[in-house]
């Protein structure tokens, strides 16, 4: 049960070693940097040190209580990330798969709209626009 914010890459396989031992179901999700049809070479991700860790821990604890998770892990990177690199991962462990899947979706919906990260596009010519929030991401929270 942990949340981490880091610049360095992570190894999902290593992160999952021993994760959820004793649970019946483990779900993992990882988000990668898209190339947006060749428009992007990288993303620059900014965050709010201190608040980020608090928010991720709070959402992880809320998911654990709501879905009865036996374990959870959130890792989110910041800094410059090249196309294809991992941005973040969530892993959830529960007795049965439905709770593990739902908890992973719940965490992703909260992370996208409520965790203090901001993405900036970097194209072949250098830094471009800040990524705008999608209304669909905000709407997704209403289902919880």
């Amino acid at each position, binding site marked *: 049960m942990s949340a981490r914010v880091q610049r360095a890459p992570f190894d999902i396989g290593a992160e999952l070693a021993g994760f959820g031992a004793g649970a019946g179901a483990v779900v993992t999700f990882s*988000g990668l940097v898209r190339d947006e049809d060749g428009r992007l070479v990288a993303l620059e991700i*900014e*965050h*709010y040190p*201190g*608040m980020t860790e*608090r928010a991720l821990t709070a959402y992880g604890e809320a998911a654990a209580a709501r879905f009865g998770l036996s374990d959870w892990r959130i890792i*989110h990177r910041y800094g410059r990330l090249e196309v294809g690199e991992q*941005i*973040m991962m969530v892993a959830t462990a529960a007795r049965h798969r439905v709770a593990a899947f739902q908890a992973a979706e719940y965490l*992703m919906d909260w*992370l*996208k*709209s*409520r*965790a*203090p*990260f*901001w*993405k*900036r596009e970097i194209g072949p010519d250098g830094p471009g626009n*800040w*990524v*705008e*929030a999608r209304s669909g*991401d*905000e709407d997704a929270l209403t289902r919880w």
Partner: protein
Amino acid sequence: MAVDVLYFAWLRERIGQPRERIETQAATVRELVAQLAAMDEWHALALSDLSAVRVAIDQELSDLDAPLAGAREVAFFPPMTGG
């Protein structure tokens, strides 16, 4: 009272600095915004469209009408785009 005011993403860029210490008598976040926007054109521009601005007080998400009493740190930033 004095509060540390933090800016992120394009708010930080438009204002030209990541944080500043502000002496204020503002009772709410909205009053603090009005004070900041009156400081110079950069603050005014960054804070001109409040529908695009989110706020946190002492690292908890809040809103413009929240009271500032006791706040140590107030952050302004655009809607978040994590994940």
